[in-house]
């Protein structure tokens, strides 16, 4: 495996005065999911760096909002910003997250954001 090239300047140049994640707007293409879609969080192998919480893996959720476009943290942590994807805000039912907890309230929810690659249609 060849060593990736880390360009120290490109992100600063791209984001200055625009903001991050704003600087990636329009780069992700058509989103695969829309608000209201039911999805399941994929249980992908843990890679070295991820921000997908273990407690969400394999759990169903509903798309609440398409929030922004950005490289996924798994790529960005390695300074790979070529592949920009949609990020979704997802709502989980507490009952689905913690089925073993008798004291989870039926109405209570957790909301969190994930990149498209972690979602599969339900």
């Amino acid at each position: 495996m060849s060593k990736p090239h880390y360009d120290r300047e490109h992100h600063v140049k791209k984001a200055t005065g625009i903001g991050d994640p704003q600087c990636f707007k329009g780069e992700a293409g058509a989103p695969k999911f829309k608000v209201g879609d039911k999805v399941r969080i994929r249980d992908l192998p843990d890679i070295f760096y991820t921000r997908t919480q273990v407690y969400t893996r394999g759990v169903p959720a509903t798309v609440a909002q398409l929030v922004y476009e950005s490289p996924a943290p798994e790529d960005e942590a390695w300074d790979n910003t070529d592949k920009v994807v949609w990020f979704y805000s997802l709502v989980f039912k507490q009952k689905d997250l913690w089925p073993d907890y008798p004291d989870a309230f039926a109405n209570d929810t957790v909301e969190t954001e994930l990149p498209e690659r972690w979602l599969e249609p339900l």
Partner: protein
Amino acid sequence: MAEKHKPAPMVDEVSEFEVLEIAVRELAIEKGLFTAEDHQRWTEYMHTLGPLPAARLVAKAWLDPEFKKLAVEDGVKASLEVGIDWVNSMPTHFGTPSDYCNLRVLEDTPKLKHVVVCTLCSCYPRPILGQSPEWYRTPNYRRRLVRWPRQVLAEFGLQVPEDVEVRVEDSNQKSRFIVLPVRPEGTEGWSEDQLAEIVTRDCLIGVAVPKPGKTANDPRPVRPAVNPYHH
């Protein structure tokens, strides 16, 4: 008059901790980990931050339905009206590895109560809310809030009725969050300044709700981490 200008009391003693902080910083600079100039610029910027702009944003939203709509749709744009430019106020002009420029304002309703956590580290909307309190950083709060939100809120003195949905926002990516609580009764006819005073930091994180007459955060006990149930 002159008596009113007595100097405020100050700590007239250099502690070992203060010395250690300076030593760590000076060595880091000498080793080239960062420059003294960058550190100073960043420190100066951080000293300007606090929860007041976020409180004012909430007060404005309570008074102006159009502004509330803007705040919920585009928190970054709404922040400009309370003097916070998420992109350009920062010395970097684009955000940082922990301060991304996507503020989301979470609107509570009589049937929905939001509360914010970052289970992965301790992401916090610093540009508009200042430094996070200690309890927000503890593994105890981070691990337990997503699992037992009502119990944790009860420890903060907030009992949420059963028919109100508690929604925990786990801040894990590039959005940062503040809560827009329901305007409390007893504040009819209040000015923006009066309203902003009761929107405390804890109300903006979501572990408290605003009340007339309450303008400060309660002291929060900090508990050691407990091992969570393994999912």
